[in-house]
């Protein structure tokens, strides 16, 4: 055991004594400066350290598997977009609450200036502010819809696969019918029946997402159902619900998690398409709606319709990149084979 006081004195000796300081300085110059100019692979010592580090580092750790350039880019992109959504009133210069980001002092479709770095859209709406505010509506619709779809989809899928019989075939026929529809057109029809309010749009995406998850999890539950551990838990007297949600579910959840991250992106993309076609909620600030409004002025005011698209692109790309990384990390077939 080393006492803390000893450590203190050692540190003091090393760093605060004038003659030692000289030594330290020399060390920095000669020993460490080479790391600045040499790539790590060429230096013998660094190579050894790297090797040791990689050997000691746990290959099974989840965070290690996610350590990937593309996944990092995705995380950064999603982080930025979430920051936009959460801190929109503080970041955006023109506020939503009163005037939907409208600056009355400029004329419509003004080119970019210092006050409006990305230009001005119809009614004098500041494009940058609306780009930032748009994150809020897209993320909230996308995330709530996906939570609804995945939870209900998983429950329906497990019930259907585990119970089997007539319930299973009825549920699967309904799923087949809904999946056979052209997706966007079905959403448009339902939006035109219910009206284009935000809550309806959330609900539609949530409900129409259920069949996909049900079918996704059904396949793996059918496989897991026949395994020995299910029989064992049956013998030990656990109820059906316990077997379904405590034993089978954790073994089938990995593809669902991957699908959720992909589908958040998918829903945001589809939502943008929906509002691009003019079926979005006009009371919200939303990227697709902005593009739809400014599209007719593409030749004279390209900034008004190009910049909102950047928002969609960054958000969706971020979620897709994370989903890709997660899929590689969660895939049992690829485990332990990751090379650096």
């Amino acid at each position, binding site marked *: 055991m080393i006492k803390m006081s000893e450590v203190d004195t050692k540190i003091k000796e090393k760093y605060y004594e004038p003659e030692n300081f000289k030594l330290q300085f020399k060390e920095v110059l000669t020993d460490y400066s080479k790391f600045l100019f040499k790539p790590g692979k060429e230096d013998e010592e660094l190579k050894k350290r790297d090797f040791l580090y990689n050997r000691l580092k746990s290959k099974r750790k989840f965070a290690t598997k996610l350590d990937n*350039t*593309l996944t990092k880019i995705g995380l950064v992109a999603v982080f930025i977009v979430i920051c936009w959504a959460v801190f929109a009133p503080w970041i955006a210069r023109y506020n939503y609450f009163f005037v939907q980001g409208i600056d009355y002092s400029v004329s419509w479709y003004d080119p970019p200036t210092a006050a409006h770095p990305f230009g001005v859209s119809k009614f004098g709406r500041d494009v940058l502010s609306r780009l930032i505010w748009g994150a809020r509506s897209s993320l909230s619709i996308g995330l709530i819809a996906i939570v609804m779809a995945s939870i209900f989809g998983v429950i329906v899928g497990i019930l259907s696969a585990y119970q089997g019989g007539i319930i299973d075939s009825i549920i699967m*026929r*309904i799923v*087949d*019918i809904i999946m*056979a*529809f*052209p997706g*966007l*057109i*079905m959403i*448009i*029809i*339902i939006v*035109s*029946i219910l009206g284009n309010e935000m809550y309806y749009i959330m609900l539609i995406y949530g409900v129409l997402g259920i069949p996909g998850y049900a079918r996704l999890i059904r396949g793996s539950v059918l496989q897991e159902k026949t395994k020995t551990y299910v029989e064992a838990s049956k013998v030990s007297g656990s109820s059906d619900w316990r077997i379904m949600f405590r034993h089978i579910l954790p073994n089938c959840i990995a593809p669902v998690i991957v699908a959720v991250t992909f589908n958040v*992106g998918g829903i945001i*993309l589809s939502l*943008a*398409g929906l509002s*691009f*076609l003019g079926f979005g909620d006009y009371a919200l600030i939303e990227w*697709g709606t902005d*593009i739809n409004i400014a*599209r007719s002025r*593409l*030749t004279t005011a*390209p900034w008004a*319709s*190009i910049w909102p*698209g950047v928002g*969609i*692109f960054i958000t*969706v*790309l971020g979620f*897709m*990149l994370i989903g*890709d990384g997660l899929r590689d990390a969660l895939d049992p*077939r*690829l485990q332990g*084979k*990751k*090379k650096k």
Partner: protein
Amino acid sequence: MSLVKYTIRRILALIPILFGVLFMTFIMTRYIPGNPFMFAIGEHPTTSQIKAMNEMVERYGLNEPILVQLWMYVQKLFSGNWGVSLIIRRGTPVWSMILDVFPRTVEIALLSVGIATGIGIKAGISSAVNRNTRKDTFIRFFALMGVAIPVFWLGMILQFTFGYRLGLLPSTNYFDANLDPVPKITHLRLIDTLITGNLIAFWDTVLHLIMPVFCLSFIYLAGITRQTRSSMLEVLELDYVRTARAKGCKEKDVINKHAFRNALIPVVTVVGLGFAGLLGGAVLTETTFNLNAMGMLTIQAINSIEYDIINATIFIGTIILVSANLIIDLVYGIVDPRIRY
């Protein structure tokens, strides 16, 4: 023999799905508030106009109970009478409207899926072979970009740069309306113009199609590349690939002949479903480029509540999708001879 039995069984299983979709579409469209005649009388109708509208509603049976209407519609559908357009092109039979529009969709879909498949498979294989190198990262990023990019936004950027700034390509429409009309032989404009030797019209159509086909193939390229990559990665780890290498096959043959053949099944699925989806109408691309094909017709029909057109287009789209599923399953047997029905 078993193949025929399998096909028949599958087709019989498709019928309830088709009817389900038809009934659902029908009932949903009838619940859209308003009726098609509403648009004809305008915003401030007089009493006589409202009376006329009600008469029309009565004549088309829109006041009947919904199940009666459904029965009438199914009878009409299977006797070959798909109804008449009421608003979009007044008096034109729906069937001939679809015949006008559908070949365009086929043309666009064929071109873009062809291009996307060719490039996507190559890119996917090279990404899987060079796994975790810089090339792989680059291809994966590009493929993800294709999945993540909103197609209308990509289209608008292309329109702005190539159509407006550089002035190289026409940015909207399917062909130049000022040209002489081309006789409809196969209804595919590219082939028709070639047959009649009308090279000006052919070149004009090609120019009009470059940007939409680029957009669509960029999107589908992404899916195909990703699918090829992941299934190739799975196959490349298998024992028989190592055996092939050990017995001294060329690396090219190992990948193209041994590994790729076995990785093809998921790729076939993605290509087939993508093609079927495109045939059902690429709504966003068509709207961006004003192509006036299947998807745009459906949107127009929804906007003006044309029940018959909505039902017909969705019905056709669904038939294509489910039969594509069937065809994909049959193609599995050709791709992989181990699969028996």
